[in-house]
């Protein structure tokens, strides 16, 4: 059976990961510069891939609330975005909210780097202060 919910608590150098597939809400929050990116994210990407392999038209909401991530984590995020885009192309409604502080030019620019070739995923840049609304 596919994973219903995958949660990994945050550490000082890894984000809180909460992929609640059953309710269609996925979130990454905090900082990400793990000592071994494959050990942390391998199972997460595998669970997402498995979930998306099942055809579904249930909406998927993804919240990215990262304040810092290193370049190895960036590669993983790109993989996640590519999986989401492929699912959205097949007709699954996918929204991604990318939260960043208004003064954080770097994270805003990263949002643009990732969203550049998204055609089917509805991507929004949001200010961190809006996250609870």
């Amino acid at each position, binding site marked *: 059976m596919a994973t219903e919910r995958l949660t990994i608590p945050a550490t000082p150098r890894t984000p809180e990961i909460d992929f609640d597939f059953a309710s269609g809400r996925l979130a990454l929050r905090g900082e990400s510069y793990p000592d071994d990116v494959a050990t942390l994210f391998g199972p997460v990407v595998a669970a997402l891939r498995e979930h998306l392999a099942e055809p579904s038209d249930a909406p998927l909401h993804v919240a990215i609330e990262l304040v810092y991530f*290193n370049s190895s984590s*960036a*590669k993983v995020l*790109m993989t996640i975005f590519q999986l989401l885009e492929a699912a959205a192309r097949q007709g699954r409604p996918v929204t991604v909210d990318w939260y960043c*502080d208004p003064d*954080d030019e*770097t994270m805003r620019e990263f949002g643009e780097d990732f969203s550049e070739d998204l055609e089917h995923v509805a991507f929004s840049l949001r200010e961190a202060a809006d996250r609870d609304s």
Partner: protein
Amino acid sequence: MAATLGQEYAAFKRELDSKGIIFSFSGYLSEGILFSLGEALREKMTLEDADGPTVRRVFSVFVEQMQNIIRYSAEKIVANDGRTIELSAGMVTIGMEGGKFFIVCGNTVRNGDVPRLRERLDFLKGLDKDGIKAHYREQLREAPDEGSRGATIGLIEIARRASEPIEYDFAATDTDKTFFCLKVRI
């Protein structure tokens, strides 16, 4: 007369201070040291009222530089007793010069790896801000190179956060290894 222990180390410290060095570490680096030095670096910069974006840029360059040493130093001890521990020889120096933060990392690389590394760095150095950004976006979408463990994108991230062109050098040694260093100003 030979310098006393105190004189010797006071002179060593004065020399570091005169170069504006805030932290300097030489020896075996690990992910644990990266984490601890990184925390100290952020705290020190925040206490000195460095603005948020500068703290984040310096921290990002620091992490990428440290991870490059940990992964690619040619002098490395790897233990694998259930969890992998990498101890890699190298040095990292962070300081301030002319009102700007700088980070220098140094480590040995195998002679055979020098041409490819030099080619990547030469290419990055020749790009302007928009060129670096476009190159980053392109590499983000590429599958990683064989055996690179993400070095390509790490170097682009470093160049992207720099406020001046990156500086690097290779110093031949009499072995099959070359000393490589990279200086980045934020």
